[in-house]
């Protein structure tokens, strides 16, 4: 097992419970998606896994070794792709890759070989001599990922690696993550506010809320939790704040959210209440009604009662 976290407890300032008996496992070559609203404990869990903080209680083993801030040798086997782009803007991509490779002890021919391999992998081999200031957001993100790959880590943690980039670069990164796990047998922990990304690449998903795991399993297993539930999306023009409360009060309605101009309503299996819903929304101009299959986002919504993308970008 690559990561084994059991009953992890972490308090901040002795009071705020960031991790509350959190347990998770990551196996070799597995892509594990970590989902949770703001303040759920994702970043704390990640920080404990990479050795940036120590747990107050519980156990965490990485590659079978106890992880802590003092376990420096273990750090050579882990790569962290930070949420913010953390490359030196004044150094070229080549120099950035060289710096991060050197920090992990790569030297000489081995370092040169890895720089060129990684540059090719992230699609920057033609622009390797340029400074990141000349790059697009997507290229900077790719360089950010590249800097965590130089030392061929067996475990990579990607914390929101696609924030603020174009769809083309996002697809590139997602394909790249899948290839990395499949071809190099690398284990990847992936967090994102884009649930469809997690759904597309993860072998296993953990949903965290208030410091503990509220659901885990493959995407299929999680979606099966919604089996039979109906999801109705209703787009409106003039949103009435009171409607949300009224909809939630309807019998057979499991969850309701309003995002931008659309109500997302999860209804119990077999219930037939669409007419009641439409009556409640008579004060609003309905532009679209859609009945859809459950997605991971719906599972998340049902379990946490929150829409992930509304929750901001970090916890």
């Amino acid at each position: 097992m690559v990561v084994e976290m059991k009953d992890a407890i972490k308090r901040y300032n002795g009071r705020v419970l960031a991790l509350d008996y959190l347990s998770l496992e990551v196996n070799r070559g597995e892509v594990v998606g970590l989902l949770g609203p703001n303040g759920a404990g994702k970043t704390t869990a990640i920080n404990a896994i990479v050795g940036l903080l120590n747990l107050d209680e519980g156990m965490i083993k990485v590659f079978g070794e106890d992880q802590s801030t003092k376990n420096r040798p273990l750090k050579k086997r882990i790569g962290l792709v930070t949420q913010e782009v953390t490359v030196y803007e004044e150094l070229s991509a080549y120099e950035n890759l060289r710096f991060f490779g050197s920090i992990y002890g790569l030297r000489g021919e081995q370092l040169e070989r890895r720089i060129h391999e990684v540059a090719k992998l992230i699609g920057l081999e033609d622009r390797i001599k340029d400074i990141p200031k000349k790059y697009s957001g997507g290229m900077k993100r790719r360089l950010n990922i590249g800097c965590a790959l130089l030392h061929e880590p067996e475990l990579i943690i990607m914390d929101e690696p696609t924030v603020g980039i174009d769809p083309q670069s996002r697809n590139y990164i997602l394909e790249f993550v899948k290839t990395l796990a499949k071809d190099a047998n690398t284990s990847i922990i992936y967090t994102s506010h884009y649930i469809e990304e997690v759904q597309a690449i993860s072998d296993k998903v953990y949903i965290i809320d208030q410091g503990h795991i509220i659901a885990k399993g493959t995407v299929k297993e999680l979606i099966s939790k919604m089996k039979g539930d109906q999801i109705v999306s209703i787009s409106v023009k003039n949103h009435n704040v009171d409607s949300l409360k009224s909809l939630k009060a309807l019998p057979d309605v499991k969850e309701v959210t309003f995002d931008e101009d659309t109500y997302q309503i999860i209804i119990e299996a077999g219930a037939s209440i669409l007419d009641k819903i439409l009556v409640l929304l008579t004060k609003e101009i309905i532009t679209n009604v859609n009945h859809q299959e459950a997605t991971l986002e719906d599972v998340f919504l049902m379990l946490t009662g929150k829409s992930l993308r509304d929750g901001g970008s970090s916890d």
Partner: protein
Amino acid sequence: MVDLVIRFYSLRVLKDIVGHVMLIGLPLLLITIMIALNEPHVPEEEFNNLVLFIGLAYTIMFQGFGAAYTSEGIENDFFKPFKSRLLVTPINPMRYVLMTLSTSIVLSFLQSTLLILYLMVVYQITINNVLGVLAALFLGVVLSQLLASLFIFLTKKAGTTQAIITVYLIAGMMVGGFFFSLPTSDLVVFLEKFSSPLAWVRYAAYGFIDGDVTRILVGMGLLSLGIVIVGLFSYRLSQKVLK
């Protein structure tokens, strides 16, 4: 690992053209202007002293600005998201900070040396015991850099650190009589000599120039003591920040 940090930090600094202009070009320009403005008002035999007075004042002042510049580097590496990226690597963060500071000390000292050489070459002045003067300037650089590191570890913000250093430099130089002559009283004379580390550097430097052993010992002693005290505080604070 040691040479790695020095190499890459130097590379980052060397690529910062604006930084060079501010820390080398600006003092050269200011020294040149101030000498040109004051030259007509002093007798020829006092020209050497004038150049030395102005040159040393600006050299010491820009050591402070050099230190403020270093705080930006430390902020970037240890107070922004970079902190996580560096702390997950096998590098020893304490060593990283020490190497960054050492590199900054060397670069800032080279800047001071360049300014002194400018005075000697362009204005043809003689500086008695120039190596001693450079030694005083070196201790001044070390203390300035440590002060900047202390402030950045304390405030966690380069902007605040730079504001503190700027106020400290202006106040220290005014009270120390770097900008203009102060009325002669025992208190003012005392402040001119000992009011701040800036004054200590000048006190020690003139001790070397005048061959005054007592002034050398007191000036260098104060600077060394300052380095030890500020260094210890900075070390303790950095341990808290980097843990």
